[in-house]
């Protein structure tokens, strides 16, 4: 019920942002607060579920989507308030869409919302760190995705440089967080739970592919001019791979992470 209300708020925020998106001049100031309210409501849902399952609610697809949507909604607010991004209407608009998409998938049959307490392997503090850090990193990658698209669509060099800087900043923040979550904490948890820190499980392999893609981006950025189209394309590709790692591997490639 609370999640449904959060969904309504996110849609409302989207409509408000949509109305002001192509208007010049005065900024609309309500939608960031509406998205923040949605994010806080989703946080309440996560807490509620955590109490119900007696563990941090990050143990299945539904809970993961709630958490991701919450992060995206909070990011909309942050982007609207940050000095560097406050003047961009497209950025929070796109992030809000991502929050809505995550929540819509959470309410679909793809992500059963039954309250199921975690199986023994999932009851680990390392799992909480592993999943939460991975998702926080991925939300920054989502910001990178939007700015990379805007970079590709930019009409002048100044805009392109500005979006390139934003893309790089978001990846530079998300990359260490994702590395810590997906690879470091994941490896420590796997070692603790299964007695092997790496096993080329499909989820592990695709997380590594995501990491390699962003690592390649960061290296290409050192050797190519920042106006090169290769780099935003790599960032877009990286996010698509991250999402395949999250959704595609669950449904198409079964492995140790098939309960997620």
């Amino acid at each position, binding site marked *: 019920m609370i999640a449904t209300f959060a969904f309504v708020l996110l849609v409302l925020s989207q409509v408000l942002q949509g109305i002001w998106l192509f208007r010049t001049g005065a900024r609309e100031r309500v939608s960031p607060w509406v998205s923040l309210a949605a994010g806080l409501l989703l946080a309440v849902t996560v807490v509620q579920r955590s109490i119900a399952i007696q563990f941090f609610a990050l143990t299945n697809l539904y809970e993961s989507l709630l958490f991701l949507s919450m992060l995206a909604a909070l990011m909309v607010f942050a982007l609207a308030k940050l000095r560097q991004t406050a003047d961009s209407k497209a950025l929070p608009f796109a992030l809000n869409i991502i929050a809505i998409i995550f929540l819509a998938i959470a309410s679909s049959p793809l992500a059963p919302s039954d309250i*199921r307490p975690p199986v023994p392997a999932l009851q680990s503090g390392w799992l909480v760190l592993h999943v939460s850090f991975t998702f926080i990193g991925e939300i920054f990658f989502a910001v990178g995705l939007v700015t990379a698209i805007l970079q590709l669509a930019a009409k002048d060099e100044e805009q392109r440089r500005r979006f390139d800087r934003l893309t790089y900043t978001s990846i530079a923040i998300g990359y260490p967080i994702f590395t810590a979550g997906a690879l*470091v904490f994941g490896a*420590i948890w796997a*070692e603790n*739970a299964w007695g092997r820190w790496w096993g080329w499980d499909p989820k592990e392999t695709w997380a590594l*592919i995501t990491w390699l893609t962003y690592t390649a981006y960061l*290296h290409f950025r050192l050797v190519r001019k920042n106006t090169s189209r290769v780099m935003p394309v790599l960032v877009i590709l990286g996010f698509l791979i991250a999402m395949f790692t999250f959704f595609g591997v669950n449904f198409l490639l079964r492995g140790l992470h098939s309960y997620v």
Partner: protein
Amino acid sequence: MNTILDRLYSFLRSLKLAAVLLVILALLAVAGGIIPQGKPADFYFSRMPSVARLVLWIGFDRLFTSRVFLLVVALFTTNLTVCTVHRLGGELSKPRKARRHGPDLLHLGLIIIIFGSLLTARTRTEKIYHAGLGQHIHLPDGQVLYLTNLRQETYESGRVRAWITEGVLGPAPVEDPHGDSVAGDTLGEEGYALSADMLGIKVLELASIPAAGETPAAPAQAPVSDKPEIPQGKPLTIKVNAPFKGKGYTIYQYDWKTIIHPVLTDSEGKRIVLHGGSRITIPQGSMLFMATEEPPAPQGAPVAPTAVFLVEQQGTRTMVRARPGDTVSSFTLAEYQTQYLSGLKVKTDPWFPLVLAGILLAMAGTVLTYVRKLKGLSA
């Protein structure tokens, strides 16, 4: 000559080479992520007939240990090493305050992880044991773990909450008829396999619990102890996510199994607990218990499994299937007895601390690198 070496050096420390190798590694990992790994050749011919021959020829059925992959990893490691040494030299020549060691730490961490992985891949050992209450397993340091309590905790819904194995560490028994641990199998691509041994004599010897005051009419081979002797020793508890770390090894709670044993009664009412492979002497022959068969998917009331026997009498062999209440030769299949087996993984990995050090170093390097860069961006 110098020019060639200089060119080689420049090539090997090139950032472009690093970026290209990262892309190649990613592409190879994509192939390894899509092509099922470690399956038998038939699998590839049936699932991907058009490319099966190519997949097998280039070793992409085991891509992450294939020569192609290892070659790229080797080149990447060389590039990383040369780049790190070159970069470190440059940084050290700068004034202390201007030095940026984040990337050096990150690269050094990655190099350590790669070498550590090679070492752990070559030296780590792991074995999975399935042992019941009262059984013991031999550990790499010569001690023996005696299982004193097995617990499966569940939520109200019946979903498993925890598997807990309690035991004591003690010296090996003086007489060990097997000379080795209880049976197990090493982890394969498809998990583990139960060996016939494990379901047979060894379980019978240590975990059968005949009714008080009775002895089995015809023990298969080994004597049955109705009260397994547990020596005094250091108590320990093993849970999922809370492994026990001993001298050079770690014991993980890996899984949990439930097996059933048919219980026969003879004409005098004596009970005999059977295990796969148990042979009982009958008039003019013998009777071998082979296995239990699960009935087809239940419709209505649950149906008990079927016990399968091979009865050899007067030179003829007959396969007999029985359910509780049925008669088999001169015996009656009275019931099934349930036995819980705790799946324990015993692992030795002397080089894991090196890998862990590499992981932490790489993590510290990543954070340092990007904190500095972000400071620069916001300035």
